[in-house]
């Protein structure tokens, strides 16, 4: 190309508008920013804007009081506002969902800890009873005096328990373990949901 020559500028309005008609909105706007002449040509190319309007919003309204460009601008601004509001509403919805899930997960973890404590208490009590039973049996046999005294002292501390208490404890442990299992499962489910919602939030914010 010859230096300083600008063939596209020497084309007449009609040809420039034919070219503009082939462009998408973004390229059209960019072309309008190239030079003041092109800006005027493109702003006046109402047929092109009519095409853009119907491409973006479907069939245009019948009669027009203002130019197609102005109509397009107004409609696009309105749509953009609507989209922004919708987006904010969506973000808020997902955020609140994340909060609820976070609370649920936290509560679930607390319950799991309580259940674990209960299981440990029951197991400890069972061990104590078992120990006492063994001590009782040991007292029946001969032991060195000093050991026997120690065992007797221990035996006196432990409340006298029945066989049914042990069974009761076994059942309790079983119940707690079952509850624990259920809680762990729901924790897993809730955590997965939480992760999913967080990803969704990220995706919306990243758009």
């Amino acid at each position: 190309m010859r230096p300083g020559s600008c063939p596209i500028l020497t084309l007449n309005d009609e040809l420039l508008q034919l070219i503009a008609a082939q462009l998408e909105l973004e390229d059209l706007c960019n072309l309008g920013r190239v030079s003041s002449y092109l800006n005027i040509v493109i702003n006046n190319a109402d047929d092109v804007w009519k095409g853009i309007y119907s491409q973006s919003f479907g069939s245009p309204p019948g009669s027009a009081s203002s130019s197609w460009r102005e109509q397009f601008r107004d409609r696009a601004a309105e749509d953009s506002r609507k989209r922004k509001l919708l987006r904010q509403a969506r973000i808020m919805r997902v955020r609140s969902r994340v909060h609820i899930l976070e609370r649920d997960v936290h509560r679930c973890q607390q319950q799991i800890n309580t259940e674990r404590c209960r299981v440990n208490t029951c197991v400890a009590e069972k061990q104590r009873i078992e120990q006492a039973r063994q001590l009782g049996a040991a007292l029946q046999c001969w032991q060195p005096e000093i050991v026997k005294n120690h065992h007797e002292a221990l035996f006196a501390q432990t409340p006298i328990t029945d066989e049914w208490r042990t069974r009761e404890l076994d059942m309790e442990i079983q119940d707690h373990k079952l509850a624990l299992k259920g809680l762990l499962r729901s924790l897993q489910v809730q955590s997965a949901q939480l992760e999913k919602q967080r990803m969704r939030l990220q995706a919306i914010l990243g758009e």
Partner: protein
Amino acid sequence: MRTVILRSSDGADHIVSSEAASLSRTVQSLLEELEAKEGEESPLIVPLPNVCDCTLRKVLQYCIQHTEPGTNLTGRIHVSETRRRDLEVWDRNYMLVSTDELYHLVMAAHYLNVPGLLELCCEGIANLIRGKSPQHVRQHFGLVNNFEKAEEEDIRRTNLWALVDEKELAKK
């Protein structure tokens, strides 16, 4: 089939079928005038003072290709699917020209009024513009930025409604 002679601005003659030449509506109406004046038998010479030899040759390539048998000329002839695809490929290859050639071609297509070629050229130019920033377009076409600073900012702002939406918002 009749042949006609198209004479370019630099005096070179091109002999083509009247069918191919008639793809240009300008030539077609000139031919009709000539036929009425000179009669059917005399050789038909059409002077085209606005088109140089090199560009005319390129335009005629298009006209000949698009009047080959099986081409949809006036809508009477059924165009087969393969023929249509072949023509599309041919058109794409035909458009592989420099910006300067393209510019002369679009001027010629406009003057000679060859609708198909004109559309093809406009598409070709649009393709050169597509995806380029204003600065990039200026560089490519050797234009200068003749906006005032304030004016440019104003245009950028009023353009914002079209482009801002999702893209720019996401950046914030």
